[in-house]
């Protein structure tokens, strides 16, 4: 385990009867922190930033999730990053905030399959049922900080920093095999 990530191409890492884990294609990831009234930013981004932690909003290919009272993560196609940055730059004066490109910081696992939610219980102490479909949370998986997106009952995305990814991947692979071996 702990093998470095040679490839950043989307790929299935493991698939069993229980679940499948693959790595998503790279995209733009922007960490946004701001305080006070958001309309100027919403206008610049072209979506209404959700203000409840865990809620998500989407406009075309741009997706935002609220991670904290002043914090959002934005996902978009790589090409779109520049235009988002400049759009926000224009409203900086009226709405000071921090917008930092962290595209290079993280990687995303796509976890789906009949027992995907159970697979997450190998490392997530929080109740997965507490995350509604279409929402997400920042939480910990086996001690590693991750952002968990619930896209469907049995379909999740998990963002984590590159250097933690092999550790997370290793446990997910063990879990896929372990769950598949269970006779229920």
């Amino acid at each position: 385990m702990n093998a470095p990530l040679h490839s950043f191409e989307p790929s299935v890492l493991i698939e069993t009867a229980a679940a499948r884990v693959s790595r998503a294609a790279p995209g733009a990831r922007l960490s946004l922190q701001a305080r006070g009234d958001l309309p100027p930013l919403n206008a610049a981004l072209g979506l209404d930033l959700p203000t409840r932690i865990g809620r998500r909003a989407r406009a075309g290919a741009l997706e935002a999730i609220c991670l904290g009272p002043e914090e959002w993560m934005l996902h978009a196609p790589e090409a779109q990053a520049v235009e988002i940055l400049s759009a926000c730059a224009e409203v900086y004066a009226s709405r000071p905030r921090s917008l930092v490109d962290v595209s290079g910081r993280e990687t995303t696992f796509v976890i789906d399959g009949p027992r995907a939610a159970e697979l997450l219980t190998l490392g997530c102490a929080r109740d997965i049922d507490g995350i509604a479909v279409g929402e997400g949370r920042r939480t910990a998986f086996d001690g590693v900080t991750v952002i968990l997106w619930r896209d469907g009952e049995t379909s999740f995305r998990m963002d984590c920093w590159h250097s933690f990814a092999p550790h997370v991947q290793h446990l997910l692979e063990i879990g896929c095999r372990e769950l598949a071996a269970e006779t229920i």
Partner: protein
Amino acid sequence: MLLIHCPYCDETLPEVEFTYAGQAHVVRPADPSSTSDSEWEAFLFLRENPKGAHYERWRHLHGCGRFFNAVRDTVSDRFLTTYAAGAPRPDLSDLIERAK
């Protein structure tokens, strides 16, 4: 493993998402240079360490990332309440009433 209510996320979550950050309402003097050595010692080191209700700070590190305040009974380890950083100390007697 404790269950902790994050006042920002408004969710009750397992301790592993949080880190303890010591006694709450320890105010850093506005002008440290004008404080005496004893006052600075008190700010740095002197703590209540009560057996019972303890005003303390936690950080939702693997969550919203916010530091917040809590009142916890250090005998039962039960939280009487949690509240946002900067909010005033809640009154203890009501809390203990409500806990009953």
